[in-house]
């Protein structure tokens, strides 16, 4: 053999050696160094899970009556993994199914197939797709007739991968009642899982609460889904069951909401909105498109009724809704029925806000309780003249009459006094006191109440600092608009004013704020909580609709209590003196008898359940006034605060006040209504859950006292009482 051959053989040997050395090194790396990591991947590789939804907990009212429950429904589901095994990918089966359940094949395909990319979804207009595991059967039809279910189950050979079985679905025995409080159920989105409140314990096949207590107490209600862990091969075929976990049913949720009170509140709202619509007032036809009613237990801060109109049927979300249909039912044209006016609607409060302005004026020293104030028909505020409602003057009157008659000009005077005092402080480089804004915030306005419902809004209370802040962010826009030739000269003038002067808290704004107009925006719930604080002597609550979470065994898992946000009359530096609140309460007690709500309460059995309240008629640019009535009662020892607000409905006394009257009737069983509670008092305890699953009513507190006449201790001399009413 030549030397060259020998040498090249040596090279070949070396090459073989190095190739095998490489393989050894790589094998060592994969198995020894990175082995642990691959072991984990392999462990999860051949696994799949099939979830079995747990029965969701019920929602009960304060007496244990079911508000939202479950019923069995025949549901047809399709398993993508099973369909995929078939030669045509299950197309023939889906076609047969399509005929049976009358859903287009393309739609069925979209629903069963794993979700494609967002782009593809948009292009093909796919709204529902399978975002879960392919092993998890996807429900494609609910409430199918029994004969359809039989057909599927008896002809299994025609429907491989399809199953029909009875499952528990949500049932709403009271239809659209309190739907804003309950919310509805919807499928969880793939991008929600693992984030925020869905961080742990959620599966792509889960239904989750959307809106209402279904959302807030989702974790309590949902229970723990059963989970079957199966071994799966690469083709998605189940090769064995590794582990089975039985589902644990969800907990029941007891609300403080009372079915009877809620029903009467919704009926009152409906009745009086309908009344407003069919009865034009002097400003024309009233649209009354939406409204809200709130009943709160002032002693506990628990909500007894929370109504919003228009409302919706949560069951509508159980079946597929085409986008068009969805827009038609729940869109802007349908007046956004999903929005809870009570907690998400912002409205100018009108004169109901005088609770705050009165307290602020008294506490700031602008209005001594025993003082006499001039109520002219109109008052010059700065450069303009601001008039009373209908230009009516009352002459010199007490603070009591000011409230009873709702005289605006008195409040304009308070506003001017305070505004000038604050301007003087500013000129001395001191902080303005801004007593109205401070009082409003102390009564809970401007921030969400923090109740246990989602997406609550906080409203708007503007002071000099916040006005300047928003001006700084918006001034560029106005300053540009000012010279924009497409704007009319009038628009340009407004833009100029906003650009140059927008940072100012003007005297006119201050005057408007004192009568609940201008920039002040509140939710009906905030108003109810403020009047509850007035009624209970100064405790401002963060309210709750839920009372307790009760396990399937009837044991109380957790009690839910309203939080005390603030004690207005307590502490070293109380916001308001107890006697101020007493004075306001006593003044408002006369509103239904001789004040602005007299017409609405004519013939009301004032002797049995005396109530006090304040009307509000808030002007809205280009629309009918917002009608408000905020009340509390019984006057001597208040238990409830009831607030009604109806948009575009005219004066407070004409729509909201009679609606409130009807709600009081419903609570106490007055004027031919059936009482919600035999003693007029809500139950202290929880419904009693028997071992056999039945629920019994909680014991009601005995009626401890006969209804008392109005407390007259702080009443001033009533010499200036006159007949007639304002809004």
């Amino acid at each position: 053999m030549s030397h060259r051959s020998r040498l090249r053989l040596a090279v070949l040997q070396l090459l073989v050696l190095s190739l095998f050395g490489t393989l050894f090194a790589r094998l060592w790396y994969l198995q020894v160094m990175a082995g642990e990591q691959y072991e984990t991947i392999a462990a999860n590789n051949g696994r799949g899970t099939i979830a079995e939804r747990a029965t969701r907990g019920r929602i009960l009212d304060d007496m244990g009556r079911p508000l939202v429950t479950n019923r069995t429904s025949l549901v047809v589901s399709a398993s993508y993994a099973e369909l995929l095994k078939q030669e045509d990918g299950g197309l023939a089966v889906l076609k047969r199914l399509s005929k049976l359940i009358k859903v287009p094949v393309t739609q069925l395909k979209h629903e069963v197939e794993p979700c494609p990319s967002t782009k593809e979804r948009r292009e093909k207009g796919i709204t529902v797709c399978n975002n879960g595991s392919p092993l998890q059967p996807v429900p494609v039809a609910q409430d199918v007739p029994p004969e359809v279910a039989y057909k599927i189950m008896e002809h299994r050979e025609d429907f491989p991968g399809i199953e029909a079985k009875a499952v528990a679905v949500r049932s709403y025995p009271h239809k659209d009642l309190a739907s804003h409080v309950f919310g509805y159920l919807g499928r969880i989105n793939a991008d929600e899982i693992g984030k925020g409140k869905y961080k742990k314990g959620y599966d792509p096949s889960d239904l989750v609460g959307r809106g209402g207590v279904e959302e807030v107490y989702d974790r309590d209600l949902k229970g723990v889904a059963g989970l079957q862990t199966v071994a799966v091969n690469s083709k998605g075929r189940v090769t064995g069951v590794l582990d089975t976990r039985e589902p644990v049913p969800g907990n029941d949720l007891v609300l403080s909401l009372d079915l009877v009170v809620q029903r009467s509140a919704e009926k009152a709202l409906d009745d009086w909105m309908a009344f407003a619509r069919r009865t034009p007032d002097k400003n024309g036809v009233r649209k009354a498109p939406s409204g809200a009613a709130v009943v709160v237990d002032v002693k506990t801060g628990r909500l007894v009724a929370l109504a919003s109109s228009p409302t919706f049927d949560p069951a509508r979300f159980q079946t597929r809704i085409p986008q068009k249909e969805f827009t038609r039912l729940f869109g802007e044209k349908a007046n956004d029925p999903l929005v809870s006016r009570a907690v998400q609607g912002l409205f100018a409060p009108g004169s109901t806000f005088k609770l705050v302005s009165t307290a602020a004026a008294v506490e700031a020293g602008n209005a001594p309780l025993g003082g006499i104030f001039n109520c002219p028909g109109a008052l010059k505020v700065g450069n303009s003249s601001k008039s009373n409602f209908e230009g009516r003057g009352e002459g010199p009157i007490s603070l009591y009459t000011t409230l009873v008659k709702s005289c605006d000009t008195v409040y304009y005077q308070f506003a001017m006094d305070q505004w000038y005092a604050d301007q003087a402080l500013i000129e001395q480089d001191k902080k303005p006191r801004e007593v109205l804004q401070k009082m409003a915030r102390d009564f809970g306005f401007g921030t969400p109440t923090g109740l246990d419902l989602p997406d609550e809004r906080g409203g708007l209370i503007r002071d000099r600092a916040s006005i300047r802040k928003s001006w700084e962010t918006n001034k560029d826009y106005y300053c540009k608009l000012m010279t924009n030739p497409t704007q009319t000269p009038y628009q340009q003038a407004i833009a100029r004013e906003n650009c140059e002067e927008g940072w100012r808290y003007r005297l006119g704004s201050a005057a408007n704020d004192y009568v609940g107009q201008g920039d002040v925006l509140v939710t009906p719930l905030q108003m109810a909580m403020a009047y509850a604080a007035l009624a209970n002597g100064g405790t401002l609550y963060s309210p709750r609709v839920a009372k307790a979470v009760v396990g399937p065994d009837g044991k109380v898992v957790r009690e839910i209590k309203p939080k005390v946000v603030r004690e207005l009359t307590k502490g070293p530096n109380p916001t308001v003196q107890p006697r101020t609140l007493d004075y306001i309460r006593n003044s408002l007690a006369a509103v239904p008898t001789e004040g602005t709500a007299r017409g609405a309460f004519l013939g009301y059995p004032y002797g049995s359940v005396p109530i006090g309240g304040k009307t509000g008629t808030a002007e809205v640019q280009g629309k009918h006034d917002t009608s408000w009535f905020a009340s509390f009662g019984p006057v001597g020892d208040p238990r409830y605060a009831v607030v009604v607000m109806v948009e575009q409905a005219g004066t407070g006394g004409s729509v909201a006040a009679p609606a409130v009257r009807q709600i009081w009737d419903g609570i106490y069983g007055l004027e031919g209504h059936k009482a919600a509670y035999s003693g007029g008092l809500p139950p202290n305890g929880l419904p009693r859950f028997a071992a056999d699953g039945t629920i019994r009513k909680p014991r009601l507190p005995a009626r401890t006292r006969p209804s008392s006449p109005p407390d007259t201790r702080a009443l001033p001399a009533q010499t200036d009482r006159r007949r007639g009413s304002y809004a």
Partner: protein
Amino acid sequence: MTGAQQQADWSTPRVSPVALNDRESFREKAFHRESPLRRLDWVVLFCAVALSGIGAVLVWSATRAAMEAAGGDPRAFLKRHVLNVLIGLALGAIAALVDYRMLRAYAPIVYIASTIGLVAVLSPLGSVINNARSWIVIGGGFQVQPSEFAKVALVVGMAMILGEKRDNEADPRDGDVLLVLAMAAVPMGLIMLQPDLGTMMVFVFTILGVLAVSGAPRRWVAGLVILGVLSGWGILHFHMLEDYQEARLTSFANPEADARDTGYNVNQAKIAIGSGRVTGKGLFQGTQTNGEFIPEQQTDFVFTVAGEELGFVGAGTILLLLGVVLWRGTRIAVNAGDMFGTLVAAGVVSWFAFQSFVNIGMTLGIMPVTGLPLPFVSYGGSAMFANFMAIGLLCNVKMRSNSWD
């Protein structure tokens, strides 16, 4: 064997005059120290049989679940594999015992026969399996892959041309090299038409190895290397491959990028091997194997079964056994009695080395996926027969070598 014995052996005559004595009993003849049986390379044979034995178990493990699910005999592949090994051993024995000088005479016949086979697969007789027209189905579940036998023909044919020495020339002339290339071009062209990229690459590497060892001028060796690299680049650059081929070739660099498709196999193979760790999950206990996450697991990806179920110990043993076969092969090449023997051994080593490296490298994610079986271990009759014929050739060379090494 000790050095002292080796020393002594050198002094003994190479061919014993009594070896051909008719009167001696078969037993005496068989175990005579000069008998071919005594001179057989038992180490290589042991390694080859051990590898095919391990292969039998791995093939069984890989096919058991699927066969059972399909309602078949879970041992069907095991039985066929063992049958293949036995036939392979018989073919190997023929290759080992046929007269050394006759081997050269047979070379053209083997070459022509395999070429006819390669033409046949391209005719309607051939069947397409896994995108390549590489098989002739002969019924009864049997099929022949002529390209495997073409490898044997290539090795013997090249050795024949390059091993013929004229006068006292030490190294082959340019003409010989050209003749070799021309001879190889025919089966390579036919394989290209199937198309079977893996076998093509084995051919290229084997030609390179044999040419280099033959002492061919450096320009030829270097030129071939450059040509190989350039054509590889050209194939990819001008998209001359089918999409699936190109995807397989390029996806190994980044298998996770396309985890459900082309890179899927590589990824699952790595997971299987990696998760086996040092001692493996135990035979039949591989979750990746039982879950059928790796395609072609009894053939191209059989090494993953070893990695997962037998761990580093088992997979390393396979590497070691292959390494020993190749090492012995190069020793046989060095010690061969003539250039023909050296080149046959070098050809077999080049072929096995490259094919093993590409196959195992592909399961480990460092080589592209090219559909080559692992010698002796993978299931497959034609490959098994060709492999054992190659071992037979090695033994044949060894028996006629001038060394006891």
